[in-house]
């Protein structure tokens, strides 16, 4: 009897040590695959809206954290929207240029962004109007100082835009 208990104790001790070791290894292995600090820190992109020669109705693409950012200055006949960025008397659409379905970059065709991968479409405000995308194009976090956008730095304007689009 005492012998059985002794073996049970040994067995359970072994299982406990193995479980702790195994769990710790999994945590380590999981973290080895996390984005590296240098990737996380590769931070901020600045865009001066006054200097990029935007043509109304013709979006431009900028790169932030490996992702495309669409900036479109709206024409007068494009629908005004609470999710627009308003600077002076101009209205802009600022959005991460990745289809919210599976992450392809939609291309601008006259007045919509069309995604080649699965046929999704977004209008000039970034709203999804056709196909599988489940939500509008995502607003990146940014702050604005005069006409200078700093992508990656959360500001009140981008917060308000995100809220309007939610």
């Amino acid at each position, binding site marked *: 009897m005492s012998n059985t208990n002794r073996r049970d104790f040994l067995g359970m001790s072994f299982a406990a040590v193995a479980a702790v070791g195994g769990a710790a290894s999994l945590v380590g292995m999981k973290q080895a*695959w996390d984005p590296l600090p240098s*990737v996380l820190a590769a931070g901020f992109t600045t865009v001066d809206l006054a200097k990029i020669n935007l043509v109304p109705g013709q979006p431009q693409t900028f790169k932030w954290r*490996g992702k495309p950012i669409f900036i479109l200055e709206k024409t007068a006949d494009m629908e005004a929207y609470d999710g627009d960025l308003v600077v002076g008397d101009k209205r802009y659409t600022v959005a991460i240029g990745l289809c919210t379905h*599976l992450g392809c*970059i939609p291309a601008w065709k006259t007045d919509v962004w069309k995604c*080649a991968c699965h046929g999704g479409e977004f209008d000039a405000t970034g709203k999804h109007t056709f196909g*599988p*995308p*489940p939500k509008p194009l995502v607003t990146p976090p940014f702050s604005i100082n005069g006409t200078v956008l700093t992508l990656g730095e959360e500001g009140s304007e981008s917060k308000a835009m995100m809220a309007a689009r939610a």
Partner: protein
Amino acid sequence: MALINESFFSAEGLEKRLAGKKFWKTMMTEYWIPKDINFLWALGVVLAVTFSILIISGIFLMMYYKPDTALAFDSVNYTIMQEVAFGWLFRHMHGVAASVIFLVIYIHMFTGIYYGSYKKGREMIWISGMLLFVTFSAGGFSGYMLPWGQMSYWAAAVITNLFAGGSLEAWGLVEWIRGGFAVNDATLTRFFMLHVFLLPLVIIMVIVFHFYTLRIPHVNNQISDDIDYDAEAEKYLAGNKKESKVIPFWPVFLSKDFAVVSVFLIFYFYLVFFNYNFAMDPVNFDPANDMVTPAHIYPEWYFLWSYETLRGPFFDMLGMKAGDIGLIIFGLAQVIFLVFPFLDKDPDVLPAHKRPMFFIWFWIMIVDLLVLSVYGKLPPTGANAWVGFYATAVFLLLWIVLPIVTKMDAKKRGAL
């Protein structure tokens, strides 16, 4: 007996130590295969040969390939293709074999479905085979990323994005898989590791297991005859080879396999030398560009049917987002074949032509998969989107009716 006195340096001594003759007998000359089979039973060996070609050509490619976003494209398209002696040959052999192996896997799979070789003791053969399909798919996907062309990059972007979980927004999982906010250098290097080490290792282990699962239930035959292997083997060993219903794996079965393998290799090398372009998408000869998605992207042909189920439901319905429905059906399509043995409610093992309703089911499934594959490659606009939608619906419906159809066959036969 523990100590062996015969010299290590003699045939007898080695035999004492390793029992090679007994091993050979168990694995080869007394491993029994039914006589009543056709060339479709040779495809397992064809697959083993094709996998060996992939490993050997892969070893040579690995010696010059560089898993770095700055170097990968040129290491493939300049170093391997133009500088390395026969580098072009190894690349084309690897690419064509990767494509052709899926053709043979599909035929092998549907041979099993047609002849009912997945039930009544053969479930494990089927399940391990489907695990091989899944691991080979992962191998195909990870390998496709390595040349770091436009298709490589965007296939990687779209497929890793599946793990965002649609509307669930499982934030962090995609970034974890990629090791960054977008597909990047860390992604390429880790998928290189998966492609050249972890996946082949797992595949080899599952292949060994797949062979082992065959051992006890034995392979099926054309009329699903339930053979008494001990009795038939005895007849064969006693010299009644004509009466016996079985033949040994080696040399009799394999000699026929080699004939089929030879025909296959003629076809394969014809593709390698004269028609390799089907496995080399022109778009992938543009270096990866994370700021431009190619005008029209599509996976390799062997993923097209499941890709089409992903985009088949293109409008919201039943209170769900279109993208989520597609994702659910796509996820289902990846695993549903695994449970095939448990959806077939017919208690008899019979070839499909002796199961009238199932026979029709089988061919509708084949046609539907072909339709999904064709439309998976076409742009998803206008009428194409609707064909994709209905073909996806038929695919789902087929799985729902499978238990009913098989039960009806069994009832009509009087087996239920």
